[in-house]
């Protein structure tokens, strides 16, 4: 039990950030929830429509479901690149004797470049006319027949908009996982090796269980970030061609700011919040259960 003065100081330090959190995060969420029961274009009087926006969203809006499926695909690609890539690079980094700092810096670099610059960069990389990097390389290695307008093909566009986002943050997660891997006691690994464990066994039985708490946190951060992904797809294709790269976030943005249908956009935003909470819950349950097993 903290003495009276300490409790007061804890309150003094905790209340301002909590209040800020309430105003900046919770209040907008509740405002969205409130708005989602109305039809409102921003200038006319608000019209109460009950759960009509939700009914339309779930039963009458094909674009919403397309955007939802695209979001899942986008999240999957981002996670494979970010977590898988980060784990591989971090593991390789622990084997490196020299130049670790340089490699780390190079990998983290994309995370500090502005999103708009990254979008422009990838627009050029994917371009067919004028020929971008990928198509030039294909031509150079004699695979000119595979040249493609990557951002215009409905079959490739979702992967094409997910890759920049995945690539961008791989370095950041690599750094977190690398720090966790460094904390794995060397004696344990050495003992395992002496007992004849393979590299894979050492990794799977010793290293991974040791970094599991960090892995859970990283997975949660990466998943929620990907679920809220917006800027790169919006800048690269604006959801197109058609709705092939439309995400829930870009659809919500267009509904609010192009169609000025703030009520329906709020309903979508409430769905995004719930979706993030469900995803976090699932990750917790799945990874914890594995740990307990």
């Amino acid at each position: 039990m903290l003495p009276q003065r300490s409790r007061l100081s804890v309150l003094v330090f905790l209340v301002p950030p909590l209040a800020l959190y309430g105003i900046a995060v919770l209040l907008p969420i509740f405002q969205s929830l409130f708005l989602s029961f109305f039809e409102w274009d921003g200038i006319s009087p608000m019209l109460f429509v009950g759960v009509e926006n939700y009914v339309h969203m779930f039963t009458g809006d094909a674009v919403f479901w397309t955007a939802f499926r695209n979001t899942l695909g986008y999240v999957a690609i981002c996670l494979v690149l970010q977590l898988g890539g980060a784990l591989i690079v971090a593991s390789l980094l622990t084997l490196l004797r020299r130049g670790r700092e340089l490699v780390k810096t190079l990998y983290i670099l994309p995370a500090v470049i502005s999103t708009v610059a990254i979008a422009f960069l990838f627009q050029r990389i994917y371009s067919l006319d004028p020929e971008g990097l990928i198509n030039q390389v294909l031509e150079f290695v004699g695979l000119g027949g595979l040249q493609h307008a990557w951002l215009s093909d409905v079959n490739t566009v979702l992967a094409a908009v997910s890759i920049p986002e995945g690539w961008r943050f791989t370095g950041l997660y690599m750094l977190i996982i690398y720090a966790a891997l460094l904390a794995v006691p060397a004696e344990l690994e050495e003992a395992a090796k002496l007992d004849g464990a393979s590299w894979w066994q050492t990794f799977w039985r010793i290293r991974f269980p040791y970094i599991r708490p960090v892995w859970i946190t990283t997975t949660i951060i990466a998943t929620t970030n990907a679920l809220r992904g917006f800027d790169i797809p919006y800048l690269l294709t604006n959801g197109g061609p058609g709705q092939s790269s439309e995400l829930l976030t870009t659809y919500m943005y267009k509904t609010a700011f192009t169609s000025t249908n703030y009520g329906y956009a709020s309903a979508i935003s409430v769905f995004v919040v719930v979706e993030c909470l469900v995803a976090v819950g699932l990750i917790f349950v799945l990874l914890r259960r594995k740990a307990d097993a």
Partner: protein
Amino acid sequence: MRTNRARLAVAATVAAFGLLLTGCAAGSGTSADPTNVDPEGEITPHEISWLLSRPADGGVITAMEQIADEYAKDHPGFALNLITTPDRPSYIQKYETLAAANKLPELFDTDATPFAQKLAANGTMMDAEALLKDLGVYDDYRPAALNYQRFDDGSLYMVPFEFQLEFFWYNKALFEQAGVQVPKTLDDFPAMCTALRDAGITPIALDGQDQWPLERYMAYYPFRTAGPDYVQQLKKGDATLSDSTGEQAVQWLSDLGSAGCFQDGFSSTGYSDAQASFTSGKAAVYNIGTWELNSLATDALDPAVRDDIDYFTLPVTADSVTAANEYVSPSGIGMAVNSKTYDPLVRDFLGFALKRYPEVYAATGALSPTTTAETTIPANATPLYQRAVDQANDVGEKTAMPWDTQLDPTSNTRLQQELTLLLQGEVAPDEFISTMDGVIADNGPKAFQ
């Protein structure tokens, strides 16, 4: 002690919410009479702002900056604060958010969209026709320039600052190489594209990324076969794309797609890449307005293609109800005057600026929205420049309205998306028609109530 603290916390929370609410409410201004264009009172110089969506180094901003400086000399304390967002979707978002928060500045740009019509209906915008008449400049404007700004009911709430003609620019040498002639009718387009493709030439350079350039093609066929009224009926649900007019238009677009009229990967090609494709002699046709005269009809153009560039206007169709000299002749995004901040100074400045503007603007080599100023042809212009400028005097009465300024925003967004799919061959004409008719039926009538 604990109860007191709890009460204090509740009181503080209530006060904080109270402050928030008053903060939200502070935005509501007092409503003024939108037809009272000559308010009484003294002219007190102060800063006024214009939220606009025009190129920062373009003719309109350059001219208005010069005019504002001239006005400020006689009215110390006056300043015109120009806040531009040239990217149109970003601009629209900014302007609509400010409108929702009741924070629009004295002057702001808008097209004659359903949203703008709501603003006019709730008294946010001054009656531009009354204002221009009161200032004695109404008759100076080209009727086509004013008509472009009008709402469907004929009311005028925006002032035009430009006048543009949209042409099909083409490369004579590439046409010759492919053995094709300038299309006489819109139906000649697919064959023209096929011949150009066969000759290894990109038929038409298109900025697919910005979507409005492709949407122009949607407007062309119905404008010829049914006239400008078609889109006005369609957007309200009084006509459908499954009508013969709509069907023909969609089929024509689908034919353009099958003939490979646009460059591969057009949907991700941006404005400057599309233009570069034409000006570098790679693409044979480029559909753009006279705002690009400086790039297409001056010595800024690559000498290798400079003498090969010419233009043709929107071809007719066999049963065309509009004349060959009627096509897209927009007067650009218009400027609205906020009635809630309208005062004698705003009126006095607009009186000064709108009288002075045509001369200053035309001196930059652009077409004035009025007939009172002659465009100065730049020293480095090719003969095509003068020809394009003279063409403005021959424009007919009816204007092909760009559909992105006509449809409700939800239908418009969906149309832009579906058009790309139609042209890429991802959806069949029938599917396109049923999707769009459904979307317009859901959103159009509601938006234009």
